[in-house]
């Protein structure tokens, strides 16, 4: 009975633990890891706004994150040095906390979004995360060589007359939607820990790009499985346990 009860939350988190570390490798490649945290906060604010408007929170979170992802490139043109991501992050956090503090019905969801209460995930969370995860992995596979080329040989697109913006905007949008879906289940910091720490460790140790993706995936999934069991056994919120475990792993390995 209890195994069945926790199967859907486990599978929901597992899908996130597979997608986020791989996505994090590409965000790190582009020096855009702060954007992940910004998308999570914006998604949290969007979910709370939607709740108050009587719309399903997941739709609000996805819509706000999609808006942030699609508009990030324009925003970044005016605000250099990562300021656009920092402003999105701080703005999203402020709106989310104010909504949670002033609207009783938003308070519970606000706690869940920031604490990361994976154990309450149901099939309405699992299917979007699973389908979104498959789409994100396929998109990353298709975009991989162009994202790498944009880093090591950025002139190539101009020289070949190929527009770079569809790749940039497509990647931003995909990252924002993936982070929004993960935030709904793992919480803001749980999702960020999975998108940041496994790639950070993998980049230090891996011999090449392919191995880096493999290392990040393995670290993310292993940490997730251990955190799931620990949080369940100790009756603790999942997000902080996962984050703490990854921080300790990071400190030990680095």
């Amino acid at each position: 009975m209890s195994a069945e009860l926790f199967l859907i939350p486990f599978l929901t988190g597992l899908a996130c633990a597979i997608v986020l570390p791989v996505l994090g490798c590409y965000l790190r490649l582009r020096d855009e890891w702060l954007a992940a945290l910004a998308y999570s906060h914006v998604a949290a604010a969007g979910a709370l706004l939607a709740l108050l408007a009587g719309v399903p929170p997941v739709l609000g979170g996805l819509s706000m994150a999609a808006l942030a992802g699609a508009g990030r490139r324009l925003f970044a043109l005016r605000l250099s040095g990562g300021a656009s991501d920092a402003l999105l992050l701080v703005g999203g956090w402020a709106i989310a906390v104010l909504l949670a503090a002033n609207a009783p019905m938003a308070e519970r969801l606000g706690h869940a979004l920031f604490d990361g209460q994976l154990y309450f995930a149901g099939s309405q969370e699992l299917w979007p995360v699973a389908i979104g995860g498959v789409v994100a992995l396929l998109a990353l596979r298709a975009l991989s060589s162009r994202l790498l080329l944009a880093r090591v040989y950025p002139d190539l697109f101009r020289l070949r007359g190929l527009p770079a913006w569809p790749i940039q905007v497509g990647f931003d949008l995909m990252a924002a939607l993936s982070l929004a879906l993960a935030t709904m289940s793992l919480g803001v910091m749980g999702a960020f820990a999975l998108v940041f720490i496994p790639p950070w460790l993998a980049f230090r140790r891996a011999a090449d790009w392919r191995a880096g993706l493999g290392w990040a995936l393995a670290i993310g999934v292993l940490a997730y499985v251990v955190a799931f069991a620990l949080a369940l056994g100790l009756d603790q919120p999942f997000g902080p346990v996962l984050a703490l475990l990854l921080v300790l792993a990071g400190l030990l390995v680095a």
Partner: protein
Amino acid sequence: MSSLLRTEQLVVGWQQPATQPLDLTIAAGEIVGLTGPNGVGKSTLLAAMSGRARVFSGRIEQRPGLRLALLRQDVPPVVGMPLSGRELLALTGASPEGLPAWLADRLDIRLDKLSGGQRHYLTLWAILQAPADLVLLDEPTNNLDVAGVAHLTEHLRDRAAAGAGILVVSHDTAFVDAVCDRVIGLRGNDVG
């Protein structure tokens, strides 16, 4: 010889004009050198030919369908990134065949674990060997030792013999003299 690229009274720059008018033709199979003191606009000319810098007057004519390759002086940093030399070459479509022995057996090592010279040569090779009709090189001998310069000289000749046009910007007079068919000296107030 067929012309790959031709400039006519070309003046380029970023915010304002930074070069004197330049007439230049590069043909297939030809290696042309651009030399001159710092600040004369050599790199800006390459940037304009590759579509980055602004053309203020004159014009650039390219053969229709021309495929360009460009090596900049400021190669993108790869520190902290797990990318091997073999993966870099695969990305640009460059063949490892013909690499010097001191690099060929280091292809599976991460780029940030190679020496500055090895990394520079591999980046250069990835661009030089990628499919292109005209190759623009900005200070290609930076960080290279004598063996690297010798190998590059020989390879550029082979590349030109295979039909590519090559435009080299360099302060390395000996290299330019050794590899170029023609050298154009840029000066502050006129082009010689």
